[in-house]
Every structure is written in C-alpha cells, then in structure tokens.
C-alpha cells in the first residue's frame, strides 16, 4: 500500500505536492475543499448555474494539468480562482463575439449614464448584516453588464490591481478605471434602490 496519510487532515501545501506527483486522491481532496469557492467565483462572473458548473469542472482539469506551474507564490485557492477567472473571460469574449457590438461598449466609450447620476449621500449598506449585505450585492451584480461586473469581481473579490486587470481583460488601464468607476457608481445606486425597496 502507498504510504498512508489522512488526506482530510493534510495541509493544502502537502496535497498540492502529492498532486504534483500525480496523486489523484490528494487532488480530489483539494477539489472537495475549494470547489464551492471556485464555483461561487465562476457564478459571480457568469451569473449562470450551468456555465459556472462547466467552468468549475474545466478549471479543475486545467489546474491538474498546470500544477507544475504552481510555485506557491499565492495560495492554491487563489491560483485556482485565477484559472477560473481566465476561463470566464474566455467564455465572455466568445459570447461577445457572437453578439453585435454591445451597448456596454458604447457606455465605456461615451461615459455612460453613471457619470450623470447623483451621488448617493447615505451609505445604503450601513447597518446590514454581512450575509444580508452579500445577498444585496449579489442582486446588484446581476444587473451589471458583463464588462462592469468582471472589473468588479477582479478588483474587489480577486484583489487584482488595475494593471493586472487590464492585462487579463485585454484593454487599457484607463478602460479598467472607467469600467470600475461606472460599475461602482451603478452598484451604489442599485444598493440604495434595494434598501429603499426593503423599507417600503
């Protein structure tokens, strides 16, 4: 029998090392540990259960095949979410190619309505419980365009810098900044709207 370890108790780093040595049971444990996080990130980007599920599966296959490229600079979970985001971006681009030029692109170029919106003076999220807040954010994210949502997910959830987002989204830093700006302004307005709706 192979040398026995308790996979469920092992650290991620040990499981990664064993997975690099083609130990599929170790990788299975990593998948079990982080699959919800990966799925949640894919869902945040795609807003579609089937697409998120397919991307999660593809991400784990890609993760296994690229394990040699993982040197532990970031955590394994962070590395996997990067793979997931890249797959999401590929799918978003593919879908975009199939559509006519979208309104969101025009918004990026012209400034969008968000620039003209009044500033939300009262913090619409003050006093909300964390879970309630997450649910509200989730509802608001649903209403953003793909490019605005992607910018938000990459900056706020993946904690990438402007430069890194620009590289991944294949656009200029200026475009990233404007996408983030419009997305945040729209989110503020949406969150305020959702708060008002609850108060009625």
């Amino acid at each position, binding site marked *: 029998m192979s040398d026995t370890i308790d996979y469920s108790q092992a650290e991620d780093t040990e499981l990664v090392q064993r997975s690099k040595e083609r130990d*599929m049971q170790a990788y*299975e444990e990593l*998948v*079990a540990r982080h*699959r*919800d996080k*990966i*799925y*949640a*990130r894919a*869902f*945040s980007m795609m807003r579609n*259960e089937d697409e998120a*599920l397919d991307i*999660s*599966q*593809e991400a*784990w*296959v890609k993760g*296994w*095949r690229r394990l040699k490229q993982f040197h532990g600079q970031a955590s394994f979970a962070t590395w996997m979410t990067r793979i997931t985001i890249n797959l999401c971006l590929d799918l978003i681009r593919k879908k975009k190619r199939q559509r006519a030029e979208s309104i969101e692109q025009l918004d990026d170029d012209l*400034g969008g309505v968000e*620039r003209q919106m009044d*500033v*939300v*003076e009262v*913090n*619409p*999220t*003050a006093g909300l419980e*964390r879970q309630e*807040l*997450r*649910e509200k*954010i*989730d509802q608001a994210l649903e209403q953003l365009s793909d490019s605005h949502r992607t910018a*938000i*997910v990459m*900056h*706020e*959830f993946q904690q990438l*810098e*402007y430069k890194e987002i620009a590289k991944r989204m294949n656009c200029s830093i*200026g475009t990233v*900044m*404007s996408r*983030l*700006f419009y997305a*945040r*302004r729209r*989110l*503020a307005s949406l*969150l305020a709207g959702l708060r008002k709706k609850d108060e009625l």
Partner: protein
Amino acid sequence: MKLETQLSIQALIDGELSDAKRREVERLLAADAGAKALHAELANTVGALRDGELARELPESREFFWSKVADEIEAAERSEARSVRSPGAKAWWTRLLAPLGAAAALVVAFTVFQSGGPQGGPHVVRPGVETVADTELELPNSVTLHLFQEDATVIWVDTTADLN
C-alpha cells in the same frame, strides 16, 4: 467634475496614485464638497464589496463532481499521450506500416488458427471465452476477454510498460 478627476478620486481609494498625485487629490477633497461626496460614495461601495461575495455551494455531490473531473483529466491525458505518439511529419514508409501490420496480423491469426495451440501469443482465445472490443477501458489497442468459467475479465493493454 471632469471624468479624469473622478477617476483620480477612485484611484486614491484603490491606492493606485503616486505620492504627488495623492496629495493633489487630497487637497481637492478638502476644498470641494462634490469631490468629497463622491469619495464617500465610492468608499462606501468599496467597503461594502470587501468580502462581499455571496458563498455558493456547487450543486453536485462531491463524488459526482469529482468523477466528472477525473474522467476529463484522464481523457485529456490520453489525448496528449496520443498526440505525442503521432508526430506530424511521417516518413513515407511509415504510411505503409498500417496495411503491412494488418496483413501481418492476418497471417499470424491464420497460423494460430491452423496450429490450434495456446502457445501462439497473448491473445489466443479458447472456446468459452468471449473477446470484445473494449469500450470501458477507453484506451486504444486493448482487448478484453470475458472468461465466464473462470469468473474473470482479462484486459490486454498493447503498450510496452516496464512495471515490475
């Protein structure tokens, strides 16, 4: 307010400004109520989004999801192995290998059939033994024998492995 100014206020919150630019924007915030209000709104939104991703459970069991991932991994590795095995440019004589191999296999099969003995090779089949093309093994060049009497399934993998 210009878009450039608005984006600078945002960049201040995101920590993406140089020291000189940061001081300039901070001076603006102290002097301009509109800029200050925008800064507050953006900061509130950024604060709300921090750790703001809704947790979701993958809607498939651990077992089922892993079996799909494992199957995909194996399929990908098989196709990779195949592509390594079949280089693009082939010598002219390699194209003759398949027909020559098939002819040789026919001759060998005929000889084995004629001799009727079990000493001919690994795939000699006796009565009561069913030979089927393998669909479960998902590997090229493999044969499965179902030995009903011996209650066994024998899978012969046509690969030169050194496993001892």
